[in-house]
């Protein structure tokens, strides 16, 4: 829903101050065809997510080892648990020694730490961020709010069960869990990936319609594209 004010500003901006690199232009695509690009327009991939088939034998083991040893976490804190993540970077807990580090954008990360309760408004942003992450991707859910709603179990605006909207690899129980518990959770996630059980992104692709139906049930102003990575 675009605000009237923003629209007016955009129109004015287009007429008066449009930079040359933002003008509509023709470019040649890799296959040689000429396409028109509007830099101010949002472009989305309309394709459904695909299942990523595991490779065979030692190759998959090696890949899983590599994935498990470089967990890059999306810097998106959703609830009160986001305050537990900064200590992990400090020398006291130092998650770098486990190969875990924070990344600023979903395109660079493969672990999403849902840190606490999710209101419907935040859930919408969380889903968009999750869908922009490249596969294979993993979700760690922090605190009792993501398991059964926690102390917000009867709230009108926070969800109760996260696994109905996005698939969860590891739950860390507690309200809130300490950073040590988070490190243990990362260790558990590593075990899961190395044993070839980190398949939740594929599960999301398989049950895509069910997840989308659940999401659309509570996100009423669905103004984002259905498939957006």
């Amino acid at each position, binding site marked *: 829903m675009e605000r009237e004010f923003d629209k007016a500003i955009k129109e004015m901006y287009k007429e008066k101050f449009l930079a040359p690199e933002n003008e509509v232009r023709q470019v040649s695509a890799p296959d040689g065809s000429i396409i028109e690009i509007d830099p101010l327009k949002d472009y989305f991939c309309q394709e459904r997510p695909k299942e990523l088939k595991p490779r065979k034998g030692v190759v998959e083991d090696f890949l899983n080892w590599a994935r498990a040893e470089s967990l890059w976490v999306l810097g998106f804190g959703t609830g009160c648990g986001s305050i537990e993540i900064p200590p992990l970077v400090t020398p006291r807990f130092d998650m770098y020694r486990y190969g875990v580090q924070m990344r600023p954008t979903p395109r660079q990360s493969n672990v999403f730490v849902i840190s606490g309760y999710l209101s*419907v408004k935040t859930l919408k942003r969380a889903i968009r961020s999750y869908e922009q992450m490249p596969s294979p991707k993993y979700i760690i859910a922090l605190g009792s709010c993501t398991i*059964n709603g926690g102390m917000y*179990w009867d709230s*009108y605006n926070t*969800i*109760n*069960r996260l696994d109905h909207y996005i698939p969860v690899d590891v739950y860390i129980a507690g309200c809130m869990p300490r950073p040590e518990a988070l490190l243990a959770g990362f260790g558990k996630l590593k075990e899961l990936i190395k044993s070839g059980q980190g398949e939740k992104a594929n599960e999301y692709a398989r049950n895509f319609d069910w997840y989308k139906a659940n999401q659309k049930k*509570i996100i009423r*102003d669905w103004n984002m594209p259905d498939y957006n990575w």
Partner: protein
Amino acid sequence: MVEILKELEDRFQVTDLVQQKDHLAFVSVDKNKAIPMITWLKDQAGYTSLTLLTAVDWLEDGKFQLTYMINNPKKNSQIAARVMIDRENATMESAHHLWESIRIYQRELKEMFGIDFPGSPEVDESFILEGWVDIPPYRRDFDTKKYSDETYFPRPGRQSNDPAEYMKSKMYPNE
């Protein structure tokens, strides 16, 4: 403080004066005299800063109570003006010409209580509940537990105790 309250009584016929502390007083004022009163307090009496605007739902009386709390930074004194408005088609005059920041409170009250402030900027846009279709959730006739059960897939197996009963059984098991 006393002089200010007396002056308010003379000028705006405020009632139910309660002075809770040296620097905090509550007054009740008629709906159509509320905005003139806070305008006078802001322009003439030095109460230049808005602390908050909030609402209480008096379901049984069929009223909403708005509280404008305003502050005099020089004297460090606060006056809170209580205004009763009807619960049916609740509407109140907007005060965004006095304080720019009050539009955020008014937007929140529109969304959470359904109190309309015609003319307030962005008052009809959704604030935190995007696409809400039920009755406004801060109204007391909204059953948040029922809504949550119907909407958010409650996980079965949750147990809860009535605190009074539970403590009684723990502390006085023989009674």
